[in-house]
């Protein structure tokens, strides 16, 4: 029996984003089929609506068989970000309202205090831990409580991963390092998952936002370009390197 190659693409509030994720996931599956089907590997493309479904898809793989995991989704340094419209909108509460307003006030995309009063979206993704969930919810003013399908990394059974597995996140900023936050206080999502994997496993995550339009090779269904960080055994292996030039055993670009 060969290894499992799991490609997950996620839901989004925007249908065009889901279409883009799906086409990128199928592009990856074609690459894997061309390179690894002869080895008897089982290549699976799975659509998920929330963090719990990501966990379920990963944990369903037999022990030690998950050789590659690709997640095509929205993202940030806190995790795989999935949000939904919250209808009706709910009051943000004093702390969240003020945190959201203050965090964004001096950014290029501020919100007014009136904007911050109501949460219009809820969170449903997979995040590093509870602190990451809170951080993301403050930044986007999104509801986290009472989202039964939101998940954190401690729910994943990391025994399903092969010793030399490759994990690649195609969404944005999962390997971003925010000064102070990610240099002193906590790891970004890509590094956090690298800490939990086998010593020979590799994790690849984008540093900036991803826009497949900007892919220099012209393939709008491929996120494998742009600046990335690569982690191995929780350590930084490559810092801010161009993805198109990278080759790793067991990855979609061996």
């Amino acid at each position, binding site marked *: 029996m060969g290894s499992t190659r799991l490609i997950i693409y996620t839901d989004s509030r*925007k249908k065009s984003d889901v279409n883009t994720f799906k086409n990128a996931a199928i592009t990856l599956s074609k690459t894997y089929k061309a390179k690894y089907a002869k080895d008897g590997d089982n290549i699976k493309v799975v659509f998920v609506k929330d963090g719990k479904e990501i966990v379920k898809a990963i944990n369903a793989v037999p022990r030690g068989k998950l050789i590659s995991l690709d997640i095509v989704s*929205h993202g940030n340094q806190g995790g795989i970000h999935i949000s939904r419209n919250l209808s009706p909108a709910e009051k943000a509460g004093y702390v969240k309202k003020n945190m959201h307003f203050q965090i964004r006030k001096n950014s290029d995309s*501020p919100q007014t205090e009136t904007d911050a009063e109501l949460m219009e979206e809820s969170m449903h993704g997979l995040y590093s831990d509870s602190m990451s969930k809170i951080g993301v919810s403050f930044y986007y003013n999104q509801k986290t409580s009472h989202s039964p399908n939101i998940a954190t990394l401690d729910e994943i059974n990391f025994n399903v991963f092969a010793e030399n597995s490759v994990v690649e996140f195609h969404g944005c900023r999962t390997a971003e390092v925010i000064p102070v936050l990610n240099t002193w206080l906590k790891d970004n999502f890509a590094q956090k998952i690298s800490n939990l994997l086998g010593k020979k496993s590799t994790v690849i995550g984008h540093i*900036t936002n991803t826009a497949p339009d900007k892919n220099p090779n012209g393939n709008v269904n491929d996120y494998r370009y742009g600046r990335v960080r690569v982690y191995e055994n929780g350590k930084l292996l490559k810092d801010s390197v161009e993805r198109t030039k990278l080759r790793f055993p067991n990855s979609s670009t061996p």
Partner: protein
Amino acid sequence: MLKTLKIVFSLFVLLFIAAAFYMLVPLESLYEVRVTNKIESISVKYINVTGEPNCAKLYEVLDGADSAVFTAYPVTVPAIEETSLAYSGNVFNIKGYRYNWVRENKLTGNKKITKSNRIDVSAWEVETPYTLWSDELDKDGMQLVIKSEEPVKHVFKDDSGNNELYRKDNFIDCLLD
């Protein structure tokens, strides 16, 4: 010794309060106002930035650098970003109201005005030909796109100029770095 410690501690607390005050600027209010009540026309291009759910997708076509547009729509006008026309490279002509940010010092009344990305969209139409998402899949299961020349236009018929009729999304500009 105890006195010295008290002085150091007091200085630390004062420094902390000063830093918090500097960062939070509690005496500053921030709000958006329409530049004018006249409708402006702009041309925007759809860029498929999928990094975050809240990434703006429409960019005003300018000489040199394109600028993100944070659209707000009345309930009767569909958001471009939510239609099947939301595809890379499509160009839309938007008519709407532009905004400025106002940072006002509550003590002195001094105001600092900067350009906002927001536009209240009163009408939009797509430039032809354009590409749109099809409901069909190819043999591998990929979502197909098709070319079209059929005009698509939406107008807010009850536009009275009231900005409370427009719903704003929590956009961020994802192409800045």
